[in-house]
């Protein structure tokens, strides 16, 4: 994608929208690899790391956060125009994030409840992923992202091969790691079977259930594959693991609740008595 022998190093921008900065911190947490990244790329814009902020155009833009204000909706259009390869990083940018829970609620009432002068708050009534506003080249899931996966995608782009982002279930990696399944052995409502791999199955590795922070496995948005079979898993949560409908609804309406397969499943369970 980029000629590695080019004298000019590819220019990188890391841009924030509505988010908690956790994914940007994952970049800073790359430690030694961060130095290698700095040697390979020209980090032209990364306010979280450096006050040296240079304007575009950029070869790669890593976008954190969702679109929640009218101003941001314009800012992302401008960034897209200056960027060759736009990569969303994390659940907020890729799926709308936890703040997309507002999509089911009345934002005006939140404003009145939280702020003494709600008239100063300018906010859209929804939180939407970047892909609803501009074309996105690659999407990294996770809350936060897996720093190894980020490094891998950048490495692939620099070397000039198509980045490979597996859409397998978390279970595959969970079993490779030799974890005991928390769903089967403890009856916890683990979302691993319908969640995308990438994290290394860290939650089941710590004895807790996956809450789907990497979003739906294959077919969530791009590429081949079908949406995961959330219907079967949700039914099992209810009939065998004894979750009541509102609990099933909340399992699917979390960090990635606004993504279609999870959203549709949560809407179904919201309507059940």
């Amino acid at each position, binding site marked *: 994608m980029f000629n*590695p022998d080019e004298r000019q190093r590819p220019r990188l921008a890391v841009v924030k929208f509505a988010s908690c900065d956790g994914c940007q911190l994952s970049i800073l947490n790359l430690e030694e*690899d961060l130095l*290698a*990244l700095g*040697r*390979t790329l020209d980090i032209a814009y990364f306010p979280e790391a450096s006050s040296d902020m240079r304007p575009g155009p950029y070869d790669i833009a890593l976008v954190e956060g969702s679109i929640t204000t009218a101003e941001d909706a314009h800012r992302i259009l401008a960034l897209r125009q200056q960027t060759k390869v736009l990569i969303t990083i994390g659940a907020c940018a890729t799926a709308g994030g936890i703040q997309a829970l507002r999509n089911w609620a009345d934002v005006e009432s939140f404003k009145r409840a939280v702020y003494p002068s709600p008239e100063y708050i300018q906010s859209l009534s929804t939180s939407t992923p970047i892909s609803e506003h501009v074309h996105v080249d690659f999407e990294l899931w996770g809350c936060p992202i897996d720093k190894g996966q980020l*490094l*891998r995608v*950048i*490495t*692939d782009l*620099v*070397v000039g091969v198509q980045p490979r982002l*597996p*859409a*397998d*279930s978390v*279970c*595959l990696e969970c*079993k*490779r*790691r*030799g*974890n*005991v*399944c*928390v*769903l*089967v*052995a*403890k*009856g916890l409502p*683990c979302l*691993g*079977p*319908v969640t995308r791999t990438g994290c290394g199955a860290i939650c089941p590795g710590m*004895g807790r259930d996956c809450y789907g922070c990497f979003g739906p496995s*294959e*077919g969530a948005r791009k590429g*081949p*594959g*079908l949406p*995961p*079979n959330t*219907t*079967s*898993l949700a039914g*099992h949560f209810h009939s*065998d693991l004894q979750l009541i409908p509102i609990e099933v609804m909340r399992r699917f309406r979390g960090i990635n609740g606004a993504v279609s397969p999870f959203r549709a499943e949560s809407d179904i369970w919201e309507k059940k008595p």
Partner: protein
Amino acid sequence: MIFPPCTRRGEFVLWRDYLLENERRFVADDIHKILPVAHLQRLLDALSAKGYRIVGPTVHDGSVVWETIRVVADLPIGWRDHQEPARYRLEQTRSSEIFGVVHGPQSLKPFAFAPRESLLQIERTKDGFATHQMAAQPEKVAVIGARACDLAGLAIQDRIFLKDAYRDPYYAVRREGLFVIAVNCTRALSTCFCASMETGPRAKAGFDLALTEVDDRLLIDVGSEAGRQVLEGISLFPASEELIGEGATSIDACARSQVRRLDRARLPQALYDVHEHPRWDDVAGRCLACTNCTMVCPTCFCHTIEETPDLSHQQTARARLWDSCFTQEHGYIHGKNIRPTIKDRYRMWLTHKLASWIDQFGMSGCVGCGRCITWCPVGIDLTEELSVLLASSNRSSVAGRPVEGR
């Protein structure tokens, strides 16, 4: 290692024949001896003295997993497992039973066919590149507590990874160091059907030592020269006919108590005949394509290759990882996915496991351990699926007949 001969399509080499063949080799001068449970530590010490790292089942996160052990107390003493579709629970019975847990999610598979195996390290050089083959360090590992189905699974993996020109050096080096102490099953789980697959519950071949726990005594069978050597220097007691009989009776009772069975009589053809059966749609509605059944299966051998280059593009590491026919990429050929739907994938899995495996390797790909039933998050049971699929083909082999009576 002896392998069942490959047969013409449709012929089925019974495990019994394969096992009998091996039995003649190993059990010819087999001596039933007794090791009191109180002396089991002596066996562990003898293994350590011979340089083995000892691995046994240990209680972990509500099940058992293989871990390095040193003392008998590391084993799941007094614990029992209860398994049913999508459910695994341990119970502490307060008994002194050592091998009361039948099995956890892992078979012997990960010991030789590693879930993640480094294959190559490739480095850029001045005039090209250099390739270094990675190999696991040879290690002597003694696994205590393997079951008959695990041994049968390992024999199938040996058939796949070690035969002739297809000998896999990575598998071979791990397999070489493996010493297996089997435990004969005297209690079946509700998910077990090894009796109908003729792979258990008695370990007949492929072990170095086999134990039968009868109250506070362990009946020992010797299965190999290495096994005999480990026992040298441990004082064993002769077993009475009565005790040998008692052990055999409990193993037989275990076989008879199995509530699941798999009807292999008309395989593989019967399964090919129902390729368009509506039951495939039914199971596709339940299956999550999560891969758990293939991960826990002692015989599944699919793997993928992963290349990890470094950012400076000076080197790349190549590794082999467990893969599954339930992933989307597994069905991907140039420009097309030949198994896009869950229905395609479940059908692929069951048909390979129970039918085309016979054509491919001359034996069934299922040893009846029941793990795929327990560890399926939604409890899909292959014995039930098969019986429904074949029930209607009993009456007619016309594909696509609706399922009755469910």
